[in-house]
């Protein structure tokens, strides 16, 4: 399921963690061409999502996602940040951060993808495996393997 949507350039191990706005901007830069929307549009969508409520979980997993009018396709990314990134104040810094942009015309695809990512990340052993990936390529392989196991 995930291999249709994962953009390998958005699957990275980032150490040290970037500053949050720089991270969001870099994701928007990468996604912009894929979804056919301006970086600023995407950035505003992510920030609006963050303003609307917590994006991370007590387990240190974040789901930074946005549904945007006119997105040409759905794009998923995943970053592991060993030092964590504080995305909201109700939960600890997240060390696994999923990024997801989808089209508002297909909300159920977005919901379903979030559900799949949530199922993958809810397992402690899986989180350990993802966090132990040494490179982006290793992380991508681990993620696809976990997707297969959960599919």
């Amino acid at each position, binding site marked *: 399921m995930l291999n249709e949507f994962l953009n390998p350039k958005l699957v990275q191990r980032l150490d040290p963690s970037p500053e949050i706005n720089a991270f969001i901007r870099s994701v928007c830069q990468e996604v912009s061409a894929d979804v056919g929307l301006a970086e600023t549009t995407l950035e505003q969508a992510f920030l609006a999502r963050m303003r609307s409520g917590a994006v991370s979980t007590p387990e240190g997993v974040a789901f930074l996602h946005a549904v945007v009018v006119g997105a040409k396709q759905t794009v998923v990314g995943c970053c592991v940040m060993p030092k964590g990134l504080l995305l909201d104040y109700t939960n600890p810094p997240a060390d696994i951060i999923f990024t997801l942009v989808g089209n508002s015309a297909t909300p*159920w695809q977005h*919901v*379903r993808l*979030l*559900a*799949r990512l*949530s*199922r993958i990340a*809810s397992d402690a052993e899986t989180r350990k495996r993802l966090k132990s990936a040494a490179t982006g390529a290793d992380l991508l392989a681990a993620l696809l393997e976990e997707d297969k*196991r*959960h599919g």
Partner: protein
Amino acid sequence: MDSAPNIERPARDERLLILIARTEESFDPLVTALLDANIQGATVLESRGLGTIIRSEMPIFAGLAALLPQSTGNRVVLSIATRAQIDELMRFLSQLPIERRPIAVTLPLETVMGLGL
């Protein structure tokens, strides 16, 4: 005479799906499994299992609390889904630790009304 009510024959492979999450903790994985199986509509009922009723409302069973499960029948989910969706859902649920798996039942459907509104 009134016209016939709007009763539909369900698609042949549709089933009534009944799921019972035993605990609060087992409800989240149930919901994500439903969504991941592309089951987009369901009704969720707050519920209590027989053990909980006996424990909390029936004095004659006092003293047996330690022998009864702490929490049972936390929520019931009702949905109508295709066999393919149910198969996928069951596969997802079977991957959960046994204590977090819901009780799951499917039944054939005879007629339906009011879906897709």
